[in-house]
Every structure is written in C-alpha cells, then in structure tokens.
C-alpha cells in the first residue's frame, strides 16, 4: 500500500467508517459484504476506498457467501474483512467455523444491534457476545475486541488484523450500534506510528513444510494459493499435512491445537483498560458503549471520594479471568452493566467463584445505561 492511501490526519467520522479506515491501514485488499443496518456504512466506505488502494469490493448475495468469500480471498493472499450485524452474524457462523478449522486469517466486524431475530435494526444491543464465543459448532479459540469509540474502532480493527495474522483465525470486532454510528474525532497517524503485521508466508522447502503443524503454540506460516505448496485445506478433521483423517486421535490433536493457540496465549492477547483498581472496593466491568457510561460514573464517584474501580474490556475474548479472579479476592462486588440479559456477567460470576458479589445491570437493547443508574447501583455496595 502506498503512503498516500493512508488518510493521515484528524477526521470527524463515525465508528463504521473508522473500522473501514483501520482495515485500509492494515492493508486489507478484499471486502465482501451484504447490506445490514447498522453495519452498512462499513461496506459503503470500503466500496469507495478499496478501488483507490487497488483492492476489490464485492457485494455478495448473502452473509453466508460474504464469509465464504473472505476466507477464499485470504487463501488467495489478500487480507480480507466483512462487516455485519446480528442476523448476518448468525448466517456467517458455519463458515466462521470453517475459518477456525482451516486456520484462515480474516476479520469479521459485528456492529451489534438489538436481537433476537430482526429485533431492533437501528438500535443498540450487546447480546452477540456469547454467540461470538460459541456460535459456530464445535470447539475453537475465540478472539473478540470491543471498541468503545470511533478512534478505538480504527485502532482495534488494526489490532484485529494483526491478531488474525498471528493466530491464523477469524478475529471479531464486536462493536455496537452506538459506537458504530457515533461521530467523533479520529486521528490516523503516519505509517511509521502504526504497527501493521504483514502476512507471514511459508518459506520452508516443500518436503519440510507442514501447513497445519500443531507442535508449537503458534500456527506455522501460511502457504497461500500459487506458492507451489499444493496444500489441501479442508474443514474435515485433518492431520498436519492437511489430509483428512477421520480418527479420534487426529481429532484430539486438531481441536486441541485450534483451542490452545488462543487459550495458552491468552495473557499475550488480553488487553484491558482500568481505572482506580489499586484501592477499589467495588469494580464496574464494562465494554463497548457501556464502558463510556461506566467510566463517567466511576469518575463521578471517585471525585466524591468513593473507592470505585473500572475494568474496561478491550478484548472480550479471551476473557481476562486472572485479573477478575485476583480482584474478586479483595473487592466487595462487581457491577456488570451490559445491553443484554446477562452474558459477560456470567463470565465474571464464574471467575469470581463466589468471593465477590456480582450485580448484572441488564438492558434488553435499544437504550444505554445512564451514569446515575450505575452510580446508584455502586452506592448500594459501598
């Protein structure tokens, strides 16, 4: 990508557009999508930007095709992305599983809206968190990032691309409608300031190269189409050469590898933003648009002298279990505001193991919490 393709400078754009710019900055050259509120603006921006940077934009016939197409493009050698919302995310699930099984790097942006089914197309929701983790059948390791502002949409899309290249799997950007449609200042820094991971391609001689080597903690470099490695890529359980083998033993190796590469590297992947944890007695755990409200509430309370902390999840998956576990031994309670009827709250409750109380502040979707609601809830525990 040439330097002029990067729109260096300050912009006043919404989160969807920032996601698209993050993708362009990462060197994404292929986007396949299908219009869906509130993620359409990502596709619109990509349709305009990709031809400028020498990439291809295609609007597919549905989300199933979009997901399959970005996997194909990734094996064709292009960094690829799609963007969707709840119903489309559901349709993508089978091929997300294919991406996990075949260790295909790509990025899926999900601008969450209220569900289930058609739900609230134009209003906010955060109820796809567990779907991202467990949506496709079978076991796999999941990496999902939750931006809370347009600037983070830009930064985390780049991070998502980097993670997808490192761990060779689809990575989710789980934004929500509020963040996607929020317009704010976004700073796109110069190329030197960005950390972009180029795809690592196979270089070993053909006879030594194992395309699905599972001996290390990280997957091997990728052999894309046309490199001459003649790799067979299959969604069937496969051995290290990529040959389908339908036995329990190979299944053990295969599935352990795709789970362990995330599970065992979790501490490297996890990123959280914290406020006042050193003396906190009550901790608010929040992500996405909710974390902005939570931050306001925590700051208000701290100004009044209350010992309140905030854990803002930047990576929802893998979940920062160790941090929450440590905190649970010394705090009274966790307050978990989220726009669903309990998803991350379960995760917090599980890791707290009964050592601290957990309060779920649930909203079914369509509106966000107010700082005063959170302040009030925290107050009950102080």
């Amino acid at each position: 990508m040439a330097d002029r393709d990067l729109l260096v400078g300050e912009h006043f754009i919404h989160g969807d557009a920032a996601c698209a710019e993050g993708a362009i900055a990462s060197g994404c050259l292929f986007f396949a999508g299908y219009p869906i509120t509130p993620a359409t603006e990502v596709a619109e921006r990509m349709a305009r930007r990709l031809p400028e940077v020498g990439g291809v934009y295609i609007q597919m016939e549905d989300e199933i095709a979009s997901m399959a197409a970005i996997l194909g493009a990734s094996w064709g050698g292009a960094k690829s992305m799609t963007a969707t919302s709840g119903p489309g995310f559901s349709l993508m699930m089978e091929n997300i599983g294919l991406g996990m099984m075949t260790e295909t790097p790509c990025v899926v942006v999900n601008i969450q809206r209220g569900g289930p089914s058609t739900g609230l197309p134009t209003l906010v929701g955060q109820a796809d968190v567990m779907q991202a983790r467990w949506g496709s059948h079978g076991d796999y390791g999941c990496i999902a990032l939750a931006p809370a502002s347009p600037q983070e949409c830009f930064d985390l899309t780049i991070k998502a691309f980097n993670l997808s290249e490192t761990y060779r799997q689809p990575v989710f950007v789980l934004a929500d409608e509020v963040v996607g449609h929020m317009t704010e200042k976004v700073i796109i820094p110069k190329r030197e300031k960005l950390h972009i991971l180029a795809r690592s391609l196979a270089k070993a001689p053909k006879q030594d190269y194992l395309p699905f080597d599972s001996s290390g903690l990280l997957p091997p470099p990728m052999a894309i189409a046309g490199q001459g490695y003649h790799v067979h890529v299959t969604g069937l359980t496969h051995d290290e050469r990529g040959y389908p083998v339908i036995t329990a033993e190979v299944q053990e190796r295969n599935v352990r590898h795709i789970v362990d590469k995330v599970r065992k590297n979790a501490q490297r992947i996890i990123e959280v933003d914290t406020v006042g944890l050193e003396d906190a007695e009550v901790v608010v755990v929040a992500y996405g648009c909710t974390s902005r409200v939570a931050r306001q509430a925590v700051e208000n309370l701290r100004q009044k002298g209350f010992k309140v902390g905030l854990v803002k999840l930047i990576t929802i998956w893998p979940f920062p279990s160790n941090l929450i576990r440590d905190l649970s031994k010394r705090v009274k309670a966790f307050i978990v505001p989220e726009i669903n009827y309990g998803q991350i709250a379960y995760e917090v409750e599980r890791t707290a193991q009964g050592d601290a109380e957990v309060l779920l502040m649930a909203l079914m979707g369509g509106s966000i919490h107010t700082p005063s609601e959170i302040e009030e809830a925290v107050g009950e525990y102080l």
Partner: protein
Amino acid sequence: MKVRLRDISQFDKEAAETAIQKDHGLHPDDRFLKPGRIPHIWCPGCGLGVVLTTFIEAVRRNQIPIDKCVVVSGIGCTGRVAGYLDMDTYHTTHGRAIPFATGLALANPEMSVTVFSGDGDLFAIGGNHLIHAARRNVNLKVICVNNFNFGMTGGQVAPTTPLEARTSTTPTGNAEPGFNLPYLAHAAGAIYVARWTTFHPRQLVHSISQALNKKGFTFVEAIAPCPTGYGRPNKLGSGLEEMRFYRDMSEIRNGADPKLAEIKLRQRFIVGTFLDSERPDFLENYDKNVVSRVKSKQKVKEKGKAA
C-alpha cells in the same frame, strides 16, 4: 478449572511419508494426485473417478502450470475431489464452494480456479451462489457432477432427481421434477454451457479444456452413474449398466437450445456443448466501471491540489 487430557502421540511425519511411497507413482496421472490419497472413497461403478481423470487430462492438454491451478469443492461425494488432486485445493462447507472460489479468484486473478462439486451442493444448498456467480461472470470453471441424488448421505432426493424417480427419501417416487441444469446456468448468465455423461470421456476432456481456456463463468455438467444411491432404487443396475443406459439414451446435439436438455426418468436426453459465448468478466467490468473512474477522480483531485 483443572483440565485432564488423554495422552496422544505427536504426528509422525516419517511414518506418514513411508506409507505414501508404497503405491504412489504407478500411474502417469499420479503426478496430479496427492501422494498417498489413492484409493479414493468412491464406490465401484461410480462415475466420479472418470470425471476426475478427464479434468486431469484437460489440465495436461492445456498445459496449465500445476502451481496455478486451484480446485475448490463443497461437501458430498464430489466434494472429496479436492482432497485427491495435488494442487492448491480447498474443501469448503456445504454449498459454499462458489463464494469461497469467488473470493479466491478475485484476490488472486492469476489463478485458474475450478469449482468441482456435485448437483446437490451446487443446486440445492448452493443454488443461490451459482446463479449470482454466473450473473457476475466471475472467472470460475464450474464442473458439476450430476448423479441425480445425495450420494454421500445414502441416496436422498436431490434437486436434479427426475419426477417419479425413487430415492431413500422418495421411496414411492419423486413428486417434484428436477432442474434442467444447462438451461438454468445459461439463463443465469454462464458464457459456456456443456453437458456430457461419463460415457463421453473424450468429449468431457474437450469441453473442460475449452472451459479452462475461457475467461468468465463456465458450466460443464457431467452426468455420472451412482449405482449405490440412484441406480439400485431405480432398477438401473450396476455402474456399468448405467453407463450402457447413458450410451443408448444420450443424443449428441451440439449447439442445441438448453431448454431441450430436460431429463426425464428412463427417457432419451440430449448432451453436447450448448453455448460458447463471450462477455466481459467481473474483474474487467470492475476495472472499467469502478477502478478507472476512481483513479481519474483521484487525478483530478491531485491536480486541483497542485494548482
């Protein structure tokens, strides 16, 4: 949470390689086959191996560099084709071979991308993708092996099963007529449409190599016997008897209107190359209507800045 796992052995590369050496390289076509993958899983009398051989012959005849060949397949008996070819091959999810291949072909236009899949995969679960790829004229070579049923799962009714034909889910006869595949592909916008049976291997080679030379969406239907799933319930006999049936009942009509290509149970049907035409493919249209316009706009902008 503590986790206890069963002890397993690591992948033994040397043992795997020695196992391969035993039977590989005896046949000249083994050069195109992944070492250690033959014998394939298909039943005796199945026509899939014939279509695979004709594809290899077409690749050889066109002298396409093997590193530039990509085969994408879906799920089912035909879906297994990808696993046998020694090329870059992709065995995707059920019905999604075409969108996967679309992504690959657009991301790397240098590759010659063939979609090798069955009638159930391409026309039942993947029907929508096929018509849209044909409409867009993505540079894909589709080879559809039609055996009139879902073979892998044990011979269920497919969208190509003729009216009245028996399958394991239509035990008293199919209540729906089947698709006329060449007519459908033609209507959706394919630039090359042909149909042969496995009794016509030479014609199949010819059609597949013609298709490989075209730029755009081509469709070759290869009717293949399925003695296990389709032949037995319909009293067509063994694979060989089904081949004889295709010999006696097929009529070569090159250039015929694909509308006439309907297949009815135990009746004569036509085969041949029905359509061979030209029109700009997706990337050509994309370059002309999108990229070049964006580039000229950019130039105007840059000039404006300079001024």
